[in-house]
């Protein structure tokens, strides 16, 4: 485009620097807000984890170093006693539960999401309506869906047991949320039900970006549809999918509310967030719980760094 009138170089430089200052100024409110409500609590919480602060005495904590994480004492008999989160079996159980939940749920959600997206991407009657209907599970509060499912999965009155019995899949009623063997399955079912639509819509948006002529060309060349999916569709949807997966992963690793409502007392579904809250608030081991949430933070941060590094994901979308 050509300028309609000529601006003198000095004016231009003046405008330029004025804009630079404005740009910096625009960042200030956001940065201030984040420091106040995100960074401050984070550092505060990390600080708590190195003290013996208790819930009743939040300001009176003494510095204890790494004692909440790991400490040891050698007895006169020569035996060494280890204490702290890092040798706490309940903690490692929670780590294992969290990782298991996050990996299984996010991969199944990505898989089903892709399937649903492929179905929805085709032409059929009532597409708009169907698309709106599947968005609903995602759009309602987790607390509502968790309560609703806990009732549907109820061993005595639940519709799930009733239907499965009628179909002959199970022979006796299962206490889905109370049983140690099925509690994790129940949590997974609800989470997958809730989040698959979200994944599907992300995949669908990716699918719709792919130009139609790519498919027509491969059709003319007689390429097998399965090959078309792996060689054309998947690589083209991948960038959108990778970003969706990492955001989901962040949520899955911190999962709290669904488990809190659905299976609050089952040791097989206690995740890192759940156990950390339990220690902080219910067991009056505030600093200990803080150490656990600090560990969870570290764990997620390491995961994100690895993911971005290994997957060469550009989250800011510059590669476009």
């Amino acid at each position, binding site marked *: *485009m050509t300028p309609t009138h000529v601006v003198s170089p000095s004016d231009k430089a003046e405008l330029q620097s004025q804009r630079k200052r404005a740009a910096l100024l625009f960042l200030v409110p956001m940065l201030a807000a984040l420091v106040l409500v*995100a960074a401050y*609590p984070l550092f505060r919480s990390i600080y708590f984890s190195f003290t013996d602060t208790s819930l009743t005495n939040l300001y009176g904590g003494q510095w204890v170093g790494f004692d909440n994480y790991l400490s040891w004492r050698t007895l006169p008999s020569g035996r060494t006693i280890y204490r702290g989160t890092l040798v706490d079996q309940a903690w490692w159980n929670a780590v294992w539960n969290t990782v298991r939940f996050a990996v299984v749920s996010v991969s199944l959600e990505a898989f089903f999401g892709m399937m649903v997206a492929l179905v929805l991407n085709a032409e059929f009657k009532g597409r708009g309506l169907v698309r709106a209907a599947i968005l609903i599970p995602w759009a309602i509060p987790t607390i509502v869906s968790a309560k*609703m499912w806990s009732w549907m999965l109820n061993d005595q009155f639940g519709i799930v047991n009733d239907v499965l019995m009628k179909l002959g899949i199970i022979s006796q009623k299962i206490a889905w949320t109370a049983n140690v063997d099925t509690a994790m399955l129940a949590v997974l079912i609800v989470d997958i039900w809730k989040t698959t639509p979200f994944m599907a*819509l992300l995949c669908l948006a990716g699918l719709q970006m792919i130009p139609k002529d790519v498919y027509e060309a491969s*059709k003319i060349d007689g390429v097998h549809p399965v090959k078309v999916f792996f060689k054309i569709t998947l690589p083209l949807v991948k960038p959108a999918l990778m970003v969706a997966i990492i955001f989901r992963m962040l949520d899955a690793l911190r999962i709290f509310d669904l488990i809190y409502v659905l299976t609050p007392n089952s040791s097989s579904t206690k995740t890192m967030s759940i156990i950390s809250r339990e220690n902080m608030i219910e067991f009056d081991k505030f600093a200990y719980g803080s150490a656990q949430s600090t560990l969870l933070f570290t764990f997620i941060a390491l995961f994100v760094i690895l993911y971005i590094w290994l997957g060469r994901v550009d989250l800011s979308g510059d590669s476009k």
Partner: protein
Amino acid sequence: MQSSPNSKPTTLIIRTIAAWSVALLLFFPLLFLAVTAFKTEGQAIAVPSLWVFTPTLENFVEVQARSNYLHYVWNSVVTSVVSTILGLLIAAPAAYSMAFSPTKRTKDILMWMLSTKMMPAVGALAPIYVMAKTAGLLDTKFSLIVVFTMSNLPIMVWMLYSHFKDIPHEILEASRMDGAGLWDEFRYVLLPLGMGGLASTGLLCLVLAWNEAFWALNLGSANAGTLATLVASYSSPEGLFWAKLSAASLMAIAPIIVFGWFSQKQLVQGLTFGAVK
């Protein structure tokens, strides 16, 4: 799999059936919830589930009588709408600045914002609770608004940033050449072109704030409680509460469903972070 204009009618029918079955499977629990809300408590626990019965409005009346429904709706509306507007006011300038005057630090800031999503909410609970208590803001809408705004801020900046980046720089350059000041630039270029992004970001955050339960439960109660608090108050292990719980849940989700229905296109666009269009 792929649509082509000359598909045979049979494939169209098969596709339609497949798509509708998927939708029905996903939608079924909600249908079940909606139906149960109109049953009596006795009918609600019947096995096998009743599908034909005389509907009753008793549950809704009781929910309203037990806890003032409109009070919670008002709290939900105020906290989600105000936090969304406040969030947009803070996020839009920041995103504008990062998209159009990127510096070496832009990427660091984006990563840093993402890192605030790595802390479990429970880890931030005590410090924030103490801050709210010290300021005398416990159980006020104000504290909920602040927390909702902040927890959505990273995602808002992120989304707006990717939307703004799609606006061709040439247009801004041209307007600058024409001597447009910052305000003109904002008013005549950025606002019209970025409207889609702003709308979808706003909508997404509205839904997220509406559904927020952790902070609503921990910072608000009688006075500032939102609809999530109302639903949470209906818990009973004895199972004679299901119809009322369903009614309360239906009342809590109805506004967001109606709202989402009308804005699903923008919502979907917003969900993709503007990364795919």
